[in-house]
């Protein structure tokens, strides 16, 4: 089954001439044609462009050029990552006709590595959501059970990788939007340290929290993709100029003696029994591999979610002020004057959840409420970061669940925003503190994938990858795949 192979395995096969990039890309395109009408992972599929770049990759190989391990590998990009000449909609009506005149830094880097863009993946509008149900265009289904959501907001990216419709994908993670859908779709997803990957060309949601990262089929692929997207970019003033190590190196060193903190707050009220059991089993596996696991406390965890919704909505309300119907995007018709044009354009162009967040953020920043909400949330942010600093004095990484539940049913939480927000309760603190974290599959509950979250110190992605790799190799959950079309019938 070619469509479930990893990038590093495909690179090996292409190197030996066992398969061409043209064949790999062709097979993935066929798979999209067969499945995506149903799954809805893609907003745009770039068939001709993908086949052309695959042929180019094969040509380079024939000429004996030095190729990156990702050369000829088909990938999906979340549709909030700008791609020159290719529509970038953010799953919003207000950008449904937007064709960026420039590319995101990550896309430029991956193009240089020879990756083949196969399509742009569905998301919650402007990455605001946890189920990919807030897309203005379509919902994405979970490949493990089509009655369930894939998580979100990078639900299209995670579903595409899980269903064999892309070898890897990029998502963006503001409060868990890479790790949560990766957990729910049974794939590997990483949010790197804030500042590690350039945000140039990522459509902004909450600038102090957003970070781009890979969604892959195993930990080695995560390291490989990370190798190609990290690095300083002066077009993003928050991009940090630190050395980028070879993340693949050291993967196999094992975790003997590694000190792992298990935060008791991540196993409290609201966690499903099945998720809790899988994570506890995973912790035993880590201990058997030689890690020393100790309970730790992150006492301000319960305040992370309310702080996050104030901070992220405040930043969103300011970032989304740019959609005014003047320079790009949709402009409403029938307006009477300039202000009326703004109002009609924005009211008609944004969806329900996006407007709710703009309203919440505008309220929190408005005169008289600023100190009570926004400043307070930023002070709590300091305390959450200090919780992590303290714990990291005594341990190398933190391990816990990625999400409190497995993938929930479509429609289950759409009318209750607070319930929806709670599905990110274990991922949000990481964004607030700017830390790196990844989710790896750690088994099943109710027949659906469960994710194990590894959280690291700033810029310690290598340590996280080493721990996740050791865990993955001793369990093998990453080799389990949904039965695609059959899955829904089995599960219902």
């Amino acid at each position, binding site marked *: 089954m070619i469509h479930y192979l990893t990038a590093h395995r495909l690179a090996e096969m292409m190197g030996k001439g066992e398969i061409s990039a043209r064949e790999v890309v062709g097979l993935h395109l066929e798979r999209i044609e067969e499945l995506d009408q149903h799954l809805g992972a893609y907003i745009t599929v770039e068939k001709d462009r993908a086949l052309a770049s695959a042929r180019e990759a094969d040509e380079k190989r024939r000429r004996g050029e030095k190729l990156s391990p990702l050369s000829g590998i088909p990938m999906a990009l979340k549709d909030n990552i700008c791609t020159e000449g290719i529509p970038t909609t953010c799953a919003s009506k207000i950008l449904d006709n937007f064709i960026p005149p420039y590319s995101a830094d990550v896309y430029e880097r991956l193009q240089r590595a020879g990756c083949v863009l196969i399509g742009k993946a569905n998301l919650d509008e402007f990455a605001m959501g946890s189920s990919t149900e807030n897309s203005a265009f379509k919902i994405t289904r979970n490949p493990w059970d089509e009655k369930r959501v894939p998580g979100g907001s990078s639900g299209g990216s995670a579903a595409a990788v899980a269903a064999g419709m892309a070898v890897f994908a990029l998502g963006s993670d503001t409060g868990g939007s890479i790790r949560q859908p990766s957990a729910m779709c049974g794939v590997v997803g990483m949010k790197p340290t804030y500042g590690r990957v350039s945000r140039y060309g990522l459509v902004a949601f909450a600038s102090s929290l957003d970070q781009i990262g890979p969604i892959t089929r195993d930990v080695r692929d995560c390291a490989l993709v990370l190798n190609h997207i990290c690095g300083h970019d002066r077009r993003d003033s928050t991009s940090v100029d630190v050395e980028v190590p070879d993340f693949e190196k050291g993967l196999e060193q094992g975790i003997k003696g590694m000190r792992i903190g298990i935060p008791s707050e991540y196993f409290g009220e609201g966690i499903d029994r099945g998720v809790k059991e899988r994570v506890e089993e995973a912790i035993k596996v880590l201990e058997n591999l030689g890690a020393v696991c100790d309970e730790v406390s992150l006492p301000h965890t319960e305040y992370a979610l*309310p702080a996050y919704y*104030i901070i992220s909505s405040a930043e969103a309300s300011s970032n989304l002020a740019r959609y*005014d119907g003047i320079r*790009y995007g949709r402009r409403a018709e029938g307006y009477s004057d*300039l202000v009326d044009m703004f109002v009609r354009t924005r009211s008609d162009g944004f969806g329900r959840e996006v407007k709710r967040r703009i309203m919440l953020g505008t309220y929190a920043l408005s005169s008289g409420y600023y100190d009570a*909400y926004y400043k307070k949330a930023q002070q*709590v*942010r*300091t305390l959450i970061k200090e919780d992590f600093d303290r714990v990291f004095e005594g341990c190398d990484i933190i391990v816990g669940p990625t999400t409190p539940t497995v993938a929930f049913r479509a429609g289950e939480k759409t009318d209750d*925003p607070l319930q929806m927000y709670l599905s990110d309760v274990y991922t949000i603190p990481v964004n607030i503190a700017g830390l790196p974290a990844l989710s790896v599959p750690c088994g099943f509950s109710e027949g659906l994938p469960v994710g194990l979250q590894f959280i690291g110190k700033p810029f310690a992605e290598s340590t996280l990858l080493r721990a996740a790799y050791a865990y993955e190799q001793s369990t093998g959950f990453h080799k389990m795949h949904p039965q695609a079309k059959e899955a829904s019938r089995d599960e219902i």
Partner: protein
Amino acid sequence: MITKKDVEYVAALARLEFSEDEKEELTKTLGDILEYAKKLSDVDTSSVQPTAHILPVNNVFREDRVEPSLGRDRVLENAPDKSKGCFRVPRVI
């Protein structure tokens, strides 16, 4: 704690408009979220500095050099309305 009047006031600030039904829904859901956010007032932050940004990066300077940027045509490609190399907007004055 949040009234329909608040919703209308904030909507005007945000350049949004809502139907009566939407206003009612927003009054409720925003009220619920803000009520939940009240939880933050349990935390004593009297001596805590706010964190706006997680990185210890302050001003980032670069050489003041002229470099190529997008051409005017490319910049205008996505404009809903344009005229003579400019974005066109409704009359303001």
